[in-house]
């Protein structure tokens, strides 16, 4: 790998910039592999419940800059709560790829022993959780931040929703309470322009959800351009603010849903669909880094190959893992032996 030493205009060292890129590449490699296996055995008659990976599948391609830019500021001691579209955040936050993949494949070695599935990932090692109900990951993040605050640590919780969830009660209640108690939370809105098939303009009364922060007495920041370094910079301020006891920040990122809401979504409602691939943030970032001399373009193939290998290893682990035993379906409703 060849890294130039020129510092980026944002102040990031070349090595840090390349690390952001590599995180994004790993996430994309993971989701491309999931996409492949998800669709592979659903033909000829497409059946959502059939195949190696059954059920709904929400992939985050295009939203990698949000995860990479924010999670670069976190350690495994910090908490992240995500949405029904969680993989990019899980991977960027350092979740074990084997256990993530195994959960998606519904295996006993998965994070939830196959009880959760891809929308319900809970990882004590990285304090990661997610929810299939919009805005409802915000309130538990308050509690994790509360525990961190009460124990006198400088740990933070990052709570992520989509822009559609910013119209839910849980979103607003959480902003108020976090600001009131100065909880170490960073609220993140991933604005990918679409709440399933409804465009943001048809669902949201303000141009920017960041404006709503003013109503709760906290800073609001909107980042345009799906630019990982701009996100990194804004998140850095928000995380530092939370770590130092100054309370929450609302950070909205204008990002991109490259693929459908779920796999199988033909997106007939989406007029700009043909142009979407042109806005893929990963080639754009590769170009920016190469133009700046921070990256030797020939290194990218190596990063991709390395990421694909990691992902294929994780998928092999998942696919070779046992499926949960049907007779154990009733386990874990309650703590055993308690």
């Amino acid at each position, binding site marked *: 790998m060849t890294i130039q030493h020129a510092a980026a205009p944002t102040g990031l060292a070349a090595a840090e910039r390349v690390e952001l890129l590599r995180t994004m590449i790993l996430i994309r490699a993971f989701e491309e592999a999931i996409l492949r296996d998800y669709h592979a055995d659903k033909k000829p008659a497409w059946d959502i419940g059939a195949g190696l990976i059954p059920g709904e599948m929400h992939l985050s391609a295009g939203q990698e800059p949000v995860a990479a830019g924010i999670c670069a500021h976190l350690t495994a001691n910090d908490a992240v709560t995500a949405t029904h579209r969680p993989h990019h955040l899980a991977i960027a936050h350092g979740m074990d790829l084997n256990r993530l993949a195994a959960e998606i494949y519904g295996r006993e070695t998965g994070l*939830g022993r196959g009880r959760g599935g891809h929308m319900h990932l809970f990882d004590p090692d990285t304090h990661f959780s997610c929810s299939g109900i919009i805005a*409802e990951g915000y*309130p538990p993040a*308050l509690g994790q931040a509360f525990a961190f605050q009460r124990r006198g640590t400088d740990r933070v919780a990052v709570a992520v929703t989509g822009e559609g969830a910013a119209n839910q009660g849980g979103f607003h209640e959480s902003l108020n309470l976090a600001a009131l108690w100065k909880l170490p939370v960073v609220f993140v809105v991933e604005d990918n322009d679409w709440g399933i098939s409804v465009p943001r303009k048809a669902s949201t009364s303000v141009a920017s959800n960041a404006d709503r922060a003013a109503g709760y007495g906290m800073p609001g920041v909107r980042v345009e351009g799906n630019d990982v370094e701009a996100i990194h910079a804004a998140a850095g301020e928000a995380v530092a603010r939370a770590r130092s006891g100054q309370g929450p920040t609302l950070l909205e990122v204008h990002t991109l849903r490259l693929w459908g809401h779920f796999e199988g979504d033909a997106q007939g409602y989406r007029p700009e669909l043909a142009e979407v691939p042109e806005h893929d943030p990963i080639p754009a970032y590769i170009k920016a880094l190469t133009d700046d001399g921070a990256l030797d373009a020939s290194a990218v193939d190596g990063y991709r190959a390395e990421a694909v290998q990691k992902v294929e290893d994780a998928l092999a682990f998942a696919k070779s893992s046992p499926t949960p035993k049907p007779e154990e379906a009733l386990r874990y409703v*309650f*703590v055993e032996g308690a």
Partner: protein
Amino acid sequence: MSVTAQNPAAAGAHAPSPVLPVEPEAGTRRLNTAKALQEAIGSQMEANPEVFVMGEDVGAYGGIFSSTTGLLDRFGPQRVIDTPISETAFIGLGIGAAVEGMRPIVELMFVDFFGVCMDQIYNHMAKIHYESGGNVRVPMVLMTATGGGYSDGAQHSQSLWGTFAHLPGMKVVVPSTPYDAKGLMTAAIQSDDPVVYMFHKGVMGLPWMAKNKRSIGAVPEQDYIVPIGKARVAREGTDVSIVTLSLSVHHSLDVAEKLEGEGISVEVLDLRSVVPLDREAIVATAAKTGRVIVVDEDYQSFGLSGEIAATLAENAASRGAAFSRVCVPDVPIPYARDLEYAVLPTPARIEAAVRAAVAG
């Protein structure tokens, strides 16, 4: 996050639970249910710094139904925390704190209000342990008041324990006596599972509400546990069994005492927990008397009484027992006193059911 064997290092936040006696002798000291409840919470807060109380008006007010009176003075606002009226946010906050190893006791004043935050309760609090394959625990107590009888209308008088019992993943306890209120709360706080702790306003012994004499009773000063999921035979009898819980236990015992003089022997089973449900005790009392009346202040259809009927039907030892029920007949709780008492399981309705059972 609070975890089990897969990540033992992170489990250090749990203080080891002291071994407490199970259902010791009641002794002679008498308390009302509210004070017994306060005592359990206070004692567990002293024993474990991770225990805290949070909710609407739990601080200076002391809880609208006196569940937390005196705790603010003892433990201060860092551990007895008044919240905004934002149930989704503060119940979710309790969940997040619990998964990080704290032991929140969260009060949401009336069970009728749970609709505004139901997602946090049944999709999060109750499901995280299962969805995580047992790797994440939610050791949280969600405490609330239930029941009618004082003209508070349809949105402040429901019981609803059947609703929470129907949704898997949370234990549901409903004490009737001061003794059980303390022991069940101690067990709930020490439980690694989420527990919905439902106290009927009418059992608390509050000075501003009509009081049943049984809302004041003997409570040991020491800490102890009433196991969650174990029913109690509140009164032995041979002719007919009343299977019930909460304030209806008091009414049923009053009726049983009255009918004793007429030679009718009534057994009263106090369920104490809806989840887990002590099905063995239900079957045993049915097998003993051959006649079961379920008295339930919750709605009649699709609830606890139907579950008990199914339990009897599914078990050979109790199959064929005569069965009837005295419940709220699937109507919102009315406001006007005459209407409300027409639908509540009053002593008069219970007495009529017992007479019909022994006559049949």
